[in-house]
């Protein structure tokens, strides 16, 4: 469970002014829940995820399973929160196995080296993510979809209860997008992971997550089920886009369809 209370993130601006990227943000994400954070570019999605991951200074408190992250060492935090960056830096000349092994860093003492248990976890994760055939291969030799699986494998090897995904599918084609999100859904149910992901594709966000939080200019403008949050009017105002929102009569999935025309003005 993640509890965020009055979390704000600001970046230094010109002179002494600072730009507020995330206004006071309060939210509670239950264990095993998948919350999708949506909003236009610059809305504060990444800032929110980066604050939870401890990558930017922030005010307010963030607790994971009742433990305040601010008081934790970097290692302790990494054993609770795994983070997949929007554009992960992937060293071409590192093998998949070594890359996934980096996920065990929080469990290895400062001067220690990986134990048999660490290697066992890595081999298991590699197997489960169907990377077994590539384990000894260099990351540079993998396709985009395989790399994404390797990145997820590294995050999974951290065995953290919370998984943060910053637009995990932005570089993938529609097929690989779906495969990656299916994989996250499968892993979530197997591992009881709490997932918070920033997503650009609104239909996918509505389909895969339990709940959506929509941000605009650092402020929460809507939160709730996909049906409640994804309305044509709201999307028009927030994204300046002309869309229709349809609901699948069979499974109730919310589908956002872009239409030609000028966006709705406030």
């Amino acid at each position: 469970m993640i509890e965020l209370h009055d979390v704000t993130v600001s970046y230094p601006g010109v002179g002494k002014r600072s730009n507020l990227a995330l206004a006071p943000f309060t939210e509670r994400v239950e264990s095993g829940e998948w919350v999708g954070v949506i909003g236009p570019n610059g809305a504060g999605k990444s800032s929110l995820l980066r604050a939870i991951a401890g990558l930017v200074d922030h005010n307010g408190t963030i607790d994971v399973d009742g433990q305040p992250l601010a008081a934790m060492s970097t290692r302790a935090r990494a054993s609770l929160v795994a983070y997949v960056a929007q554009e992960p830096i992937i060293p071409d000349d590192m093998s998949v196995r070594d890359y996934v092994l980096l996920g065990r860093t929080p469990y290895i003492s400062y001067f220690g080296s990986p134990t048999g248990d660490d290697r066992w976890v890595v081999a298991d994760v590699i197997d489960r993510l169907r990377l077994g055939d590539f384990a000894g291969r260099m990351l540079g030799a993998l396709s985009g979809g395989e790399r994404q699986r390797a990145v997820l494998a590294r995050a999974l090897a951290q065995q953290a209860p919370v998984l943060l995904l910053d637009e995990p599918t932005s570089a993938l084609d529609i097929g690989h997008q779906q495969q990656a999100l299916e994989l996250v859904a499968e892993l979530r149910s197997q591992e009881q992971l709490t997932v918070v992901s920033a997503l650009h594709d609104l239909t996918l966000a509505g389909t895969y997550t339990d709940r959506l939080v929509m941000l605009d200019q650092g402020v929460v403008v809507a939160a709730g089920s996909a049906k409640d949050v994804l309305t044509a009017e709201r999307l028009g105002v927030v994204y300046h886009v002309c869309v229709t929102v349809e609901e699948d009569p069979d499974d109730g999935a919310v589908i956002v369809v872009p239409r030609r025309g000028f966006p709705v003005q406030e």
Partner: protein
Amino acid sequence: MADIVTALDSARDDTRNPGTSASRIERGRDLRWFVGAAGALVVTVVVGASIGPAGPDWWRVPLELLDRLPLISIDSGVTEAEWAIVWKVRMPRVILGGLVGGMLSVAGASYQGVFRNPLVDPYLLGAASGAGLGATIALTVGRGTTASWSIDPVPAMAFVVAVVTVMVTYLVGTAFRGSHSVGSTGVTLVLAGVAVVSFTTAVQTFILQRNTELFREVFRWILGSLARATWSDVRLVVPYVLIATVTLVLHRRHLDAFRVGDQEAATLGVSVERTRLVIVVAATLGTAAVVSVAGLIGFLGLVVPHVVRLVAGAGYRRLIPLSFLCGASFLITADIPGRMLSNPAETPIGVVTAFIGAPFFIYLLRSRRIS
């Protein structure tokens, strides 16, 4: 019997755990590389001690070295006077060459890793320009005045000013970092390094311009040399090289984590700023120590780690120990033509390292790209 039980256990372990057998093979490969490189270094040391413009026939030296090992007795025919040349003149030079080459290479590899920048060498944050300035200041006092001093001020000042310069760079680089996010000091440190290096070089140039008679001596020092190496030089640098190298070897796992960038390394549990500081301090102390006795030997801190990467792979688990071993072998080898070719006037070793190393590096880059 015990072997069979162990083998069965290990086979059972492999079935249960496919990852362990692959990683065992991987560690076996590492070991082969280390043993190979260490063997090459031993051969280089023996060859380095065997060749020189004066002294015994070259082939007698390995025999004499064997003779001096316990339980082995060989009549090499080397006289005491000849042995004195080998042991008091050549050997300290060879050992110092090994320590300097190994230290600069391992420091270069670590700097490249911690700044995630392939163009970085151990002189990035001002160790070289600081040492140059320190040596210049010491030389202005005049050899005549300092000859009676109990400590030679040139290496001492070179070392102190090098360390102070890197400290200033670090303080400037971390004080003015732009943002409040993890890992923002990497770039500001490099930029601070550029500024501080320019400043110390300017001060050095100013001093030189006021003391033009020092040009020759300072220039000779800058080019680097192992010609006047003694056992006391070796004793002086050994502790620094040992501590620095052991520290860097212990941080190879962290250096591998740095390969995914500061931010991702932080999310993996690496204390980025603290770990970087430890690595930079270790690499700088070692570099400052070897530079203070051997001058500014360029090129190998940049290139040896790249050669090792191209040949043995880019993982720091292998790269750090191999950089030390190969850098040591390389500088000992590069020192041989330096003392033979233009005997009695020596060719500066920095010239030889670049002369041999640059074409070899280009050849390696080319052949690897084609393959």
